[in-house]
């Protein structure tokens, strides 16, 4: 059975959904909001579900065809025969892209269903779903593209959708601010910085390898590294290792933008201004993971950068290899964002910083060469973070209804999500402020239980998906020996503890204790459309870990055992162990990750002396698992102790954590403030200078008025007064007067006497005769 050809349908269905909602949706909703919403929402949802169906078909096809990758051409795009350059719009169907497709369309469909309940009653209902389908469309382009340029189209497309959806409620607030629109702009502008890196990386790839297709790029990268070729850039040339390192570093810059890492993570917390389903779909489960997808897709380049560093000492400033930098960036982001999350009061901001932190885990995994672990964590994170966001949306929904219950007169506008602090005005109510919640576990049972599952998974408690994926990642960092890896391991372990603590704090503040506000007292459960996706995601969160279970051995010392596996490498044991139920994801993904093939015995990378591919342990590393479980449990318990025992009795009491002053520095310390103090004023000064001094004063006033206009005026004056007057007129009149004078002379010969003419003829004849007589003969 080959259904590879179905791949374009993956894009066609969301495109149909988008066009329907963009062109007709508004009419439907305006004509009859109830039926219209149903049409608009269900068509969008069906589009996403159909795409999910196609992804499942592709999954089955891959299973039936021994995971054989296939490139499905859709159309020629850019063809320049003279330069031997062709970029086709082709879709790459392999295990990695299909994994992403399944996550995007599967989680996406559930969030579509949820959004129908959440967005009910919104005046721009169809616009929301049009954007949602457009997002699915671009995200699928991103993950299915068979070359970097198509990937970049998707990359920019999802960025556009992110912008549109963050600023979805772009209304002007009462104080004249446009908080939501500003948040959208911020996300877009911060992402420009990352995309700048992407563009440079793509240009560099094309210059170096003469192609943008994944396969050709990777093949020539390996070949050029093996032969240690030199790349020429006109004025200078560089060894291939340095070029690959630069490419990977630029990819990292792109990933820090899209996947919200240090130094560009600042946009993601603000992106919570969008509707909650947007936060769940785009800013937790799918779009923000595209940086990880990019790096995992480019695993060959990442490993070659590692090889160049180990073998030739080529790194970033000669100090650190590109993958190690990736790992450190990811780990420090994980830690910093985890600390910031301690101090947030907004239920969604906690989750936002948590997302930044978890993305840091994945980026760190990629940097350590644990591509499968990164993808594993990406998938499980998509499940439980989508679940948590949808749960928080449900909580917000419930709080809003509770608030309505007490304030009937209050108008029906949506909350301003981006409010950082709880406003002191007595009548102001922020349904996202956790200090106003409490005791919701009795009011919203479904939300509570599913949220609990998600939170435990995120904290890394044993049977849930988060435990397995986070543990695989930590085990990888622990088992492979290098200074960077150890540092990353400890940073991530502390970050994992932070995760457990802030999730515990959030659970306590939201669901336990007594209601601290009238709204919380009157909150009630959300409709079925919202709770059913929660339940499905909760089930996925529970069983998600089973897709890549490690082998569990009870005999012998745990550490010694795991080392043994690593040392034996990818030999017979690996093949034998992957036959069973365990490591299904690894077995599935390694078909797409060229690096496995290369680092095996006989592969190009196995020949190097110093370089060794950092394999992920295939068995459970007991030390790591026990440490992280203990830390997670202690984090939860500590949070329970701090928040539950000494919880604020009313919404205005200070947080007990505020006694820990240094912790609260993180609320203001992070890069956000730094940027506002340095980069933003500098940039503003620069653009002011460019606008007023360079553009207006110099360019308009000076260059245009003084130089161009004055030169033009004097030149045309010269033309009119000198050239035309004396040159052109003089010539014409001169010809006339010369002709006239000549004629005056010549007319004198015309006497009117016939005899004089006759004499002329005679004389002429005589002259001719004389000429012939004297000269001709």
């Amino acid at each position: 059975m080959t259904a590879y050809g179905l791949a374009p349908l993956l894009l066609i269905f969301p495109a149909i959904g988008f066009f329907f909602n963009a062109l007709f949706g508004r009419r439907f909703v305006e004509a009859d909001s109830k039926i219209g919403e149903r049409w608009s929402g269900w068509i969008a949802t069906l589009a996403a579900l159909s795409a999910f169906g196609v992804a499942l078909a592709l999954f089955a096809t891959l299973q039936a065809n021994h995971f054989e990758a296939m490139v499905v051409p859709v159309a020629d795009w850019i063809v320049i025969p003279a330069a031997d350059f062709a970029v086709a719009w082709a879709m790459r169907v392999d295990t990695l892209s299909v994994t992403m497709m399944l996550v995007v369309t599967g989680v996406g469909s559930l969030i579509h269903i949820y959004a129908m309940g959440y967005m009910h009653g919104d005046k721009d209902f169809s616009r929301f779903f049009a954007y949602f389908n457009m997002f699915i469309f671009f995200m699928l382009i991103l993950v299915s593209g068979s070359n970097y340029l198509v990937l970049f189209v998707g990359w920019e497309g999802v960025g556009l959708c992110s912008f549109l959806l963050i600023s979805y409620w772009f209304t002007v607030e009462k104080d004249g601010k446009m908080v939501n629109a500003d948040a959208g702009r911020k996300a877009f502008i911060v992402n420009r910085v990352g995309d700048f890196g992407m563009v440079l990386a793509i240009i560099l790839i094309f210059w170096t390898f003469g192609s943008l297709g994944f396969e050709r790029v990777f093949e020539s990268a390996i070949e050029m590294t093996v032969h240690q070729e030199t790349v020429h850039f006109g004025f200078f040339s560089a060894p291939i290792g340095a070029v690959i390192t630069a490419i990977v570093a630029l990819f990292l810059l792109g990933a820090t933008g899209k996947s919200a890492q240090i130094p560009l993570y600042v946009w993601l917390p603000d992106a919570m201004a969008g509707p909650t389903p947007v936060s769940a779909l785009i800013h937790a489960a799918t779009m923000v993971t595209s940086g990880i997808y990019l790096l995992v897709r480019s695993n060959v380049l990442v490993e070659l950068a590692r090889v160049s560093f180990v073998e030739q000492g080529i790194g970033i400033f000669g100090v650190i290899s590109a993958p190690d930098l990736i790992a450190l960036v990811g780990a420090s982001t994980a830690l910093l964002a985890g600390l910031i999350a301690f101090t947030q009061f907004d239920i969604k901001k906690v989750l936002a910083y948590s997302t930044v932190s978890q993305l840091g885990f994945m980026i760190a995994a990629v940097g350590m060469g644990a591509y499968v672990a990164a993808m594993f964590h990406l998938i499980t994170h998509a499940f439980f973070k989508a679940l948590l966001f949808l749960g928080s949306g449900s909580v917000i929904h419930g709080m809003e209804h509770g608030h309505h219950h007490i304030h009937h007169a209050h108008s029906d506008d949506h909350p301003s999500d981006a409010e950082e602090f709880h406003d002191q005005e007595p009548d102001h109510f922020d349904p996202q402020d956790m200090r106003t919640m409490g005791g919701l576990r009795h009011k919203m049972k479904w939300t509570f239980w599913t949220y609990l599952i998600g939170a435990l998974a995120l904290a890394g408690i044993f049977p849930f998906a988060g435990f397995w994926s986070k543990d695989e990642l930590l085990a990888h960092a622990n088992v492979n020996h290098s200074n960077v890896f150890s540092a990353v391991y400890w940073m991530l372990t502390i970050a994992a503890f932070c995760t457990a603590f802030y999730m515990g704090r959030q659970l306590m503040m939201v669901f336990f204790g007594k209601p601290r506000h009238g709204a919380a007292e009157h909150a009630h459960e959300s409709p079925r459309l919202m709770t059913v996706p929660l339940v499905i995601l909760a089930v996925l969160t529970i069983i998600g870990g089973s897709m890549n279970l490690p082998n569990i051995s009870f005999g012998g010392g745990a550490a010694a055992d795991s080392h043994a596996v690593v040392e034996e490498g990818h030999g017979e044991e690996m093949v034998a162990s992957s036959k069973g139920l365990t490591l299904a994801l690894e077995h599935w993904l390694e078909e797409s990750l060229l690096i496995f093939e290369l680092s095996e015995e006989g592969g190009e990378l196995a020949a190097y002396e110093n370089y060794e591919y950092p394999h992920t342990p295939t068995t459970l590393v007991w030390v790591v698992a026990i440490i992280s479980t203990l830390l997670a449990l202690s984090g939860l318990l500590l949070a329970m102790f701090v928040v539950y025992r000494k919880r604020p009795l009313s919404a205005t009491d200070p947080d007990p954590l505020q006694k820990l002053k240094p912790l609260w520095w993180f609320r203001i310390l992070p890069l956000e403030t730094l940027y506002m103090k340095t980069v933003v004023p500098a940039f503003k000064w620069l653009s002011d200078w460019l606008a007023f001094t360079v553009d207006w004063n110099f360019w308009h006033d000076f260059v245009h008025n003084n130089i161009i206009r004055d030169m033009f005026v004097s030149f045309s004056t010269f033309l009119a007064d000198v050239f035309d007057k004396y040159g052109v007129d003089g010539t014409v009149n001169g010809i006339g007067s010369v002709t006239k004078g000549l004629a005056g002379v010549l007319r004198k010969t015309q006497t009117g006497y016939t005899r004089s003419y006759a004499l002329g003829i005679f004389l002429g004849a005589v002259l001719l005769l004389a000429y012939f007589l004297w000269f001709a003969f």
Partner: protein
Amino acid sequence: MSEVTIEWYIALSVVLFTIGSLGVLLRRNAIIIFMSVEMMLNSANLAFVSFARYLGNLDGQVLVFFVITVAAAEVAVGLALIVAIFRTKKSISIDDLNLLKG
């Protein structure tokens, strides 16, 4: 009594041509000028036939026939012109015909 040689004929022709030329240049009566032109033509004819006989071929005589034919045509046109001029100007003095004076 010496024999009449070619020189005699040439001399006569020269005299005739000279008289004709002077007539054309000096006289004002159009008829007289016309007659002088005829005289010049005939002096040329005389030279042609003299040379023809002297050289013993007929080329000159053939040319003379052409000249006579052209002269006849010329007379017809020229006299018609003179008559037309006389009708308008009441004069055939060529000094009166100075309309093209510059």
